[in-house]
């Protein structure tokens, strides 16, 4: 469903991504981890073309992301993304956040979009919050709305960029629960996170990045049992300790 072949990206002379290759099959859940600044965000932003890259190739559902002729807006409409800081639109109610792209991008009728939004709000357990503004919700609630907003577009896959790292500890689980359920329902997901409990529970594979390289790309079990690189071992022992 998603394949990266020798993707490299530069900011000037600085190489942010170095020769990254991997495959994500339909229904697979991949966790990406690694130290801060290792290029995790950049990598998943390349997948939906939010960041351009200079070398290599990314194919999402048969569409080449780097190809100039690709209609990136149309591709992005089919790839859900959830951000660390939620990025709900603060000038719109929760309901409006869920409806706007459905009507303006997919051309759905408003009633249809509202019905879809309501259904997904129920799915994330926030059906009673539709008329509030995002600023009136807790972080965990905002992130669940953000997930619902992405799901409203009927995405073929979902990208998560550290969805719980801006949350107070007591709110992390409400978001992870939604994500676990999503994974169990068969959604294809790439999740940048340091929540190793989540990785163990639902991820088929774990990718470990360092200095813009994919250092490990392993089955979840073997990644935790015996990480091959010293860097990954060191990283794991550090985050599993705290």
């Amino acid at each position, binding site marked *: 469903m998603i394949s990266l072949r020798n993707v490299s990206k530069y900011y000037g002379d600085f190489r942010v991504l170095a020769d990254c290759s991997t495959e994500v099959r339909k229904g697979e859940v991949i966790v990406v981890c690694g130290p801060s600044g290792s290029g995790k965000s950049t990598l998943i*932003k390349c997948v*939906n073309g*939010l960041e351009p890259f200079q070398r290599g190739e990314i194919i999402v559902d048969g569409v080449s992301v780097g190809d100039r002729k690709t209609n990136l*807006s*149309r591709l*992005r*409409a*089919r*790839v*859900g*993304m959830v*951000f660390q*800081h939620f*990025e*709900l*639109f*603060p*000038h719109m109610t929760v309901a409006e956040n869920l409806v*706007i*792209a459905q009507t*303006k*991008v*997919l051309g759905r009728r408003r009633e249809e979009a509202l019905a879809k939004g309501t259904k997904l709000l129920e799915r994330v357990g926030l059906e009673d919050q539709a008329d509030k503004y995002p600023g009136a919700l807790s972080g965990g609630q905002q992130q669940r709305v953000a997930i619902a*907003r*992405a799901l409203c*577009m009927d995405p073929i896959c979902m990208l998560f960029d550290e969805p719980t790292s801006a949350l107070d500890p007591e709110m992390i689980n409400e978001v992870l629960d939604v994500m676990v359920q999503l994974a169990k329902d068969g959604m294809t997901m790439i999740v940048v996170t340091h929540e190793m409990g989540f990785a163990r529970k639902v991820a088929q594979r774990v990718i470990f990045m360092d200095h813009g390289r994919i250092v490990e790309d392993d089955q979840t079990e073997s990644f935790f049992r015996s990480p091959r690189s010293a860097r990954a071992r060191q990283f794991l022992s550090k985050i599993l300790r705290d």
Partner: protein
Amino acid sequence: MYEYDWSSIPGALPFLAHGMRVSLEITAVAIVVGIVWGTMLAVLRLSSVKPLAWLAAGYVNLFRSVPLVMVLLWFFLIVPQFLQDLFNLGRATDTRLVSAMVGFALFEAAYYSEIIRAGIHSVGQGQIAAAHALGMTRGQALRLVVLPQAFRNMVPLLLTQAIILFQDTSLVYVSALADFFGAAYKVGERDGRIVELLLFAGAVYFVLCYAASRLVRRLQRRAAA
């Protein structure tokens, strides 16, 4: 000791009120046109078509670097000719009001565009990324996500600029157009009571502008709460 005599004011009130209407009309047109054209300029400056961005930047910098009174005089001199030629109006047709409106609108647009540009920059990159991630085009992201927030963030500055604009409309006296200030001056000249009339006009400007700026501050506090 100067003997104040306010007696010419009551009789002149209808004339002064008409002058106030002229001032408010010029202000309203300049605000509406200035914000619309200013928004377009701000967006053009962000355009990836470089010549468009340069033209918009040139426009803004030009108008911000010349005195308003000069711009107005310029418009009083050229716009009448232009309108008269365009619509085949007689030389006697009074186009000063339209000239004033055009001059103010074009001048204010430069200032409004700077405010709106700052507003656009105040909207985080993450919001734009989120809009794009939902499949919005650049235009949609701008219209649906960035500009509404830019305006919301800039409401106090836009209103403050409107208050300044209202005060500046008094500059149309250079064309002898009877706006509020011009009307007051004329009455004062007629009755030899310029001091009284100017004090009165000043008091009216002060009350209106001070009340308006208090209102803006209240709004600002409410928005911050």
